[in-house]
Structures are given as structure tokens and as C-alpha cells.
């Protein structure tokens, strides 16, 4: 008890009108790391609490999608892929699923936690971050199935597999970026949460998740790569199943995400001061 007091006695909190534009206090977020952990843990716990199948849903959802799309694209439409379709599709669908899940959850997370916003102080960005981390846990579980499929098709594992780590981080950062923009807007305009599912499904069509794509025209390729998920999805396929390695267009994906992320942080920071008043 005494140590706790001496440790925090020097802490001085200043109250003043929030006029700044930029400003994200990483130190403060670090101090609140346990809250991030508990909110993530709550999201996961609550999601599967009363489901008979529990955490298996995290696995079942992508597996069922895989079975259905394999049937539609491979068996019925005869889409040609360089590797077996289930493998081709799953290698891209899992990071996509992570992204779209994270994006949807983080966009609605602030409104879903309105009771916290109006009653307790903590850095607001913790809420979308925690919702994305909860989606990451689902993703890690499904990754195990993917490895199972790879063993089934006797795909050799290479060291390239470690590349999925930066690609996963990029997908999460992209989702957080969307979450910052949409989440902050949703506090004021509930239309956003109606829009998010559409945005997610349109975005999926623009990303080669379920079908292969081959663009030779450099200009079109460039435009295509403005969608950062193109880089993520292709990167994942390459890291797990080989094929064409990501080239310089990856830089576009990263650049776009970073640019929008910084913009998102600024926007979020500008909006967060009124969250408690308008939510």
C-alpha cells in the first residue's frame, strides 16, 4: 500500500481544454496496458460464454466458409488456381477474416462501450485496440487449421512462414486505421455502423481473396495495390505456399496504411474530447 502511494504521489493530472490536434500519449497507454488486456479478455470470454460450441465457433466459421467457397469456386465455377483451391483460398481468407472482423468490431466498439466512455477516464484508443486484439486471438486459433490443411496437401514449410508476422501486423494496422476513422464517426453518426458491413463486403470483392487475379498493366496494378489488403493477402499466400514473392508494390500498401493511420490518429484525437458528451 505504502509503495503504491509513493509511486503515484508525484503524478500530477492537468485538466485543461483540449485544443491540440496531434498527440497520442504512448506512455499513458503503456500505463493502461492491463486495461487493454482485461477488455480483450472480456470480449473473448463474453463472445463464447453461452455458446454450446464455445471457442470452436472461431474455427467453424472460417472452415464452413472454406467448404462453401471451395464448392462454389472450385467445383462449380472451375476457377483455376496454381495450388489446390482450399489451400489457395484459406491462405488468403484467414488474414482477410482477421481484417474484416477487426475492422467491423473496432468501428462499433466505442458506441458499444458508451457506458465506459461516460463514466471513467482512460485513453479512448484502448477500446478499438482491445477489440482488434480479441479478433487476433480468433485468428491465431484458425491459423492452426491452416497449418493442418498445409500438412494434408503436403506443402513444405519454409522459413518464409515467418513473414506472416509482419503481414498480420499490417492487416491489424489497416483494421485499426479504419476503426479509428469509423469508430470516431460512429459516436456521432450511427449511420456508420450500418455502413460497415457493406464496406467490408465491397472491400472483399476488391481483394483477391476467393479468386486469383493477374493484372499485367502497370498502371492498373498500381491502382489495385492502393488497397493495402492486396499486399497482405498476396504476401500471406507467398509466405505459406510459395509462388510469386511480393515486389515493390508492397511499399504502396504499407505507405497507404501508414498515411491513413496517422490521419486516423489525428482525427480520433480531435473527436475523442467530445465522445462523452455526444455518445
Amino acid at each position, binding site marked *: 500500500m505504502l509503495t503504491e502511494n509513493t509511486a503515484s504521489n508525484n503524478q500530477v493530472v492537468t*485538466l485543461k*481544454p483540449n485544443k491540440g490536434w496531434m498527440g497520442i500519449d504512448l506512455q499513458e497507454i503503456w500505463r493502461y496496458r*492491463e486495461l487493454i488486456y*482485461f477488455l480483450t479478455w472480456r470480449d473473448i470470454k463474453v463472445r463464447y460464454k453461452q455458446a454450446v460450441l464455445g471457442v470452436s465457433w472461431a474455427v467453424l466459421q472460417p472452415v464452413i466458409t472454406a467448404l462453401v467457397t471451395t464448392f462454389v469456386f472450385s467445383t462449380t465455377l472451375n476457377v483455376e488456381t496454381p495450388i489446390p483451391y482450399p489451400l489457395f483460398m484459406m491462405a488468403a481468407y484467414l488474414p482477410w477474416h482477421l481484417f474484416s472482423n477487426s475492422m467491423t468490431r473496432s468501428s462499433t466498439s466505442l458506441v458499444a462501450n458508451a457506458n465506459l466512455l461516460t*463514466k*471513467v*477516464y482512460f485513453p479512448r484508443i484502448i477500446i478499438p485496440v482491445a477489440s482488434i486484439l480479441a479478433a487476433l486471438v480468433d485468428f491465431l486459433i484458425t491459423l492452426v487449421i491452416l497449418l493442418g490443411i498445409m500438412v494434408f496437401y503436403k506443402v513444405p514449410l519454409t522459413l518464409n512462414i515467418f513473414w506472416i508476422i509482419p503481414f498480420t501486423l499490417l492487416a491489424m494496422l489497416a483494421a485499426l486505421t479504419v476503426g479509428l476513422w469509423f469508430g470516431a464517426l460512429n459516436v*456521432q453518426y450511427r449511420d456508420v455502423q450500418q455502413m460497415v458491413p457493406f464496406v467490408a463486403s465491397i472491400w472483399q470483392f476488391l481483394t483477391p481473396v476467393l479468386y486469383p487475379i493477374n493484372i499485367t498493366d502497370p498502371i492498373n496494378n498500381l491502382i489495385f495495390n492502393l488497397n493495402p489488403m492486396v499486399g497482405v493477402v498476396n504476401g500471406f499466400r507467398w509466405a505459406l505456399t510459395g509462388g510469386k514473392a511480393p515486389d515493390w508494390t508492397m511499399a504502396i500498401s504499407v505507405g497507404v496504411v501508414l498515411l491513413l493511420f496517422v490521419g486516423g490518429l489525428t482525427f480520433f484525437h480531435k473527436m475523442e474530447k*467530445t465522445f462523452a458528451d455526444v455518445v
Partner: protein
Amino acid sequence: MEKDLSIEIRDIGKRYRIGVAERSDTLRDVITNGTAKLGHALSGKRSPHLTSQYVWALRHVSFEVKKGTALGIIGRNGAGKSTLLKILSRVTDPTEGQGELRGRVGSLLEVGTGFHAELSGRENIYLNGAILGMTKKEIDSRFDQIVDFSEIGQYIDTPVKRYSSGMYLRLAFAVAAHLEPEILVVDEVLAVGDADFQRKCLGKMSDVAGEGRTVLFVSHNMSAIQRLTQECLVLDKGQVLMRGPSEQAVDFYLNRGLSKLGERFWEADEVPLNTKPFQPLGIRVLDKEGTVSDSVRSVDPITIEIEYRLEEAVTGLRVGYYLYTTRGEPVFTSFDTDSEESFGQYPVRQAGTWRSRCVIPAHTLNEGRFVLGINASSYGIRRYFQDDQALSFSVDASGGAGTHWPEPRPGSVRPVLDWQIEKTE
């Protein structure tokens, strides 16, 4: 900032935007408002409804609190108490002015913030603790105390949705009570739970204040305020009216404005927007002759009148009052449709201006000062309006039961009862 100060607030103000047309909750509103504005701009007319209106919930508030002081904040609904607490707990930023808080701030604007119905008591203790700013280590070390305090015992691993509301509140308060920040900001959380538990909470709160922590405490319960705090701020219309020792401040608050000679009118800005269709107009205390009076006699009947307007017909309306002592202890509650007869006679009250009048029979109240709280509701449907400190008045008991002995008599009622004295042996 001086060393022994724990809170220093300088000239803080908070402005909110009101105006119904301006509230833009959906994009469609933004677009239609935008279009309307454009239309008005083109036609050269200005719509009064579309200009933004601002209201200051707090303005020019400055005060300091020394370390280890328990400061009460009292004021009527809408005086700015909650806004002040929200700023102090950093939930919202002030529009102007600034302040400094020295030490970790724990705020309890409600108990059980972030409780999740699906999670067990144990899980909620950790979650709620983390939300209130405790580290996992702190929660671990206080876990057993929290469970003991909450009296939840064996139900600790049951989802809280299966708890009774009493258990839920006890657990929620138990977590909050074990938060040990240097500055504790508390809003009306004691208004919950049964009397026993309330007493326990009050005890815990005075322990906290006794340990040298700074406590800011908002409550409508004047007896709790007087027990827990040494000093009080009286807020009115967003400004600090006075600051002083709690007893003086409570007296000042209860006597000022509240009791303009036994009568009280509601100004439009004192009534929340959501009371519609009920609009309180006034409440008054009348003596035997029917004149409005701040001081009435116990030996005479006392009349309480409540006037109000209904903007539309209201079904099942009951209008009534709570009578409290100035220490916040309830004396009794009465509604205008308490009797079967009047209940049957007024199933629906039409739009218009109404008056509900009640006579407290002679020889009911003891001497002292009393507070009237008003309540207008339709049972099981909605509470339209409530003001726990609508009006106060004094009762003079001279001539009443037992006043030939010039000693103070405990109790808030002083009935004339029928005694028989018999010699049995």
C-alpha cells in the same frame, strides 16, 4: 501548485450545445440541416431553429482542496454537480479554465461500470477493478476483502445476471470501495442498496477519508454529507455560491432559494427537457388561514399545494411529495391518488393546468425544519419529474403534545395519542 493541495481548479467552465434542430445524430440530419441552411441562405431568411445554442453547465468555478479533506458538493438538479465531477474525473474536458489534481484519481460516477452480465462475480471484480484503474496485483491482494465486503460468498463464480439486484450492487460497491486512490470522486452511489448496506458503505467512505485521502462527494443525502465531509461547496446554475463548513453549507443550501417564504416556482431552465408532458409550476406550504408561509404551526392543519401543467392527457398520473427531515431521513410519502376513490376518479388527467392539494392534519409533525421532495409519475410506466429538494419549511410545535415540558423531543412526528391511565392495583 502548493505542496499540501490535492486539487486546484481555476476558472473552469463547460459549455454544451443544445437546440433540438442542431442535434445531428445521423448523417441524414446533417444533410437535411445543411440543405435547409442552404435554402434559407438562398432565400435570405434565417431560421431561428437552426442557429446553434450553447449553454454553460459550469462557469468560472475555482476552488482548492487540501490533501486529506473530504469535500461535499451540493446543489439542485442541473446545478452542474455532475458536470464538475465529470471534469474532475477526466471523462470530459473543460471548455475553458484549467486545473491540477495531484495523485491518482479514482472516480465512482456509478458503481459497477463495465460489469458484464455474462461474466461471473470473480471475473467482474477483475474487469471492473481494471476499469476503475486498479492493477491486477492490487486486485489480487484485495480480492478476499472485496468478496468479504460484498457478502456474495459462494456465488462468486455465478454469472452476475443471476444475482439479485441487491447482490449486484453490493459486489459493485465492494470493488469500488477497495479502490485506493489519493483522490476519490464519488457521485451519489450511496443512494443504492438496503439500509444496512448503505450504513456499511458510509462507514467505508469515512474510513477512506480518515486515511488521509482526498474525497469529493456529491449527494442529495444531507445527513450523509454532514457525516462524511468537513466542508461543502454549494453550486447553483453552474457557479459556486458558497463554500464553508458542511453544517453551515447545508443550512445555507436548504434555506436559500429553496424556501422563498414557503413557496417555490420552477423556472424553465430548472426543469429537465425530458419531463414532458409534465411541467411543474410551483409548490407551496399554506397555514390555517390559507396564506403561504415558511413557518407553520404543528397544532394547525398544514396544506401542501403542487401546481403543474400537462401538455397532453396523462394516464395513471400520480403527483405527490416525500417529506424529509433536513438530515435527509424520510418522514412519509404521499400521493394525490393514494385513496381508492381518487385513484378511480382520475384514471386519465386531461391536458391543462392542475393543482393537487394535500392537508397534513394538525398534530402530525414535530418541531423542526422539513424538506419536501416532489414526484410525478405513472406507476410502472414512467417517472416524469422528481426533485428531492423542492421546498423546505419550519414547523413550530408550541401548544402541541407535551410542550408543557420545555425539552426537545426526539422524532419527526408529534402526534396526540390516546392514553389511558388506570390504577390496576
